[in-house]
């Protein structure tokens, strides 16, 4: 077989104009509301603290396994690591889930579905990109059918590296997300307002 002049197997990516992901379903809803909008002062800060405390300690995650990482996610929910200690329960319906753990490779065929699921979730919703594939495509990023990172489809809060991440790593990611939730909505109103404007501008860009 003479193949020296043949094209080898790597996939070459052709540059093309920017387009968005195809979106099935409803519009993107509002940014997670802070209570400060309605009343200023010490009451609302305490209220926000209470809200954040509730949210961070009761993150029910969607039973949504994509690939290999799903097995580690199940292991984290299992007896030894036990997600339930953090108040996290696997929940089948996206409407009632708070956290989406994208555990595995997102392909072109799956991407619109992931987007739809994310849109079906009620605010406040959080996303953890679990593993190398969900972060940036991982070992499959050369593939012609693999989305290089779930953050091309939905916004991600916490990235957990690893292929697949150990349960300890996933738990650490969850703790990081809890810290993130804990400070949400507690900034000075002006600053937050500014940020919101910025984020809307970003949204329009996207």
């Amino acid at each position, binding site marked *: *077989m003479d*193949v020296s002049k*043949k*094209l*080898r*197997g790597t*996939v*070459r*990516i*052709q*540059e*093309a*104009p*920017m*387009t*968005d*992901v*195809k979106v099935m379903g409803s519009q993107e809803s509002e*940014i*997670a509301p802070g209570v400060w909008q309605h009343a200023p002062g010490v009451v609302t800060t305490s209220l926000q603290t209470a809200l954040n405390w509730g949210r961070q300690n009761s993150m029910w995650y969607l039973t949504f396994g994509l690939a290999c990482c799903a097995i580690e996610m199940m292991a984290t929910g299992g007896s030894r690591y036990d997600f339930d200690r953090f108040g996290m329960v696997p929940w089948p319906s996206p409407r009632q889930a708070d956290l989406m753990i994208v555990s595995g490779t997102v*392909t*072109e*065929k799956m991407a619109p579905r992931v987007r739809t699921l994310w849109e079906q979730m009620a605010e406040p919703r959080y996303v953890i990109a679990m593993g190398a594939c969900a972060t940036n495509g991982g070992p499959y990023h050369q593939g*012609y*059918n693999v*989305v*290089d*990172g779930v*953050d*091309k*489809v*939905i*916004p*991600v*809060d916490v990235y957990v590296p690893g292929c697949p991440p150990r349960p300890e790593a996933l738990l650490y990611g969850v703790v990081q997300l809890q810290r*993130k939730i804990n400070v*949400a909505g507690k900034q000075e109103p002006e600053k937050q307002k500014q*940020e*919101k404007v*910025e*984020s809307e501008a*970003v*949204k329009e860009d*996207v």
Partner: protein
Amino acid sequence: MSEINEKVKGRLIEQFPGVEVSETEFGQVEVKAPKEIIADLARFVREELDFDYLTMVAGVDYIEYLQLVYHIRSLKDYAELIIKVDVDSENAVVASVAPIWTGANWHEREAMDMFGIQFEGHPDPRPILLPEDWQGGHPLRKDFIDKRPKRERQFRTR
């Protein structure tokens, strides 16, 4: 085991004088057949030689031509048979073996997706692995180019 291989080889040469029959170093009978007789050949090995278990249908792109590789087992005789069929790259049409081995159905659909080989007489010729809005082309061919647009990162502030 080799007696069975000898027997299979004998029967095949007797029945199909044109085909190339050999035995690989791993103890499998290998048949190189022209694509016109694949349906007859398949029926013959299925019914007369008891090769009842189709494990896979693989396509290979050799640039000048495509090749289909069928690997079939005989669960009764513990024998293995490999059938190789060359298909034209541009006009890739070959008879389906799905009516003979039902399990070939999905394997042939996959080859259809990946190499663009059309199977005549296939009961359900639809794409199987590729997405509905597939960009076009047959990914496992060597000249495939990925034409997907680049995507931007999505983010939101909290």
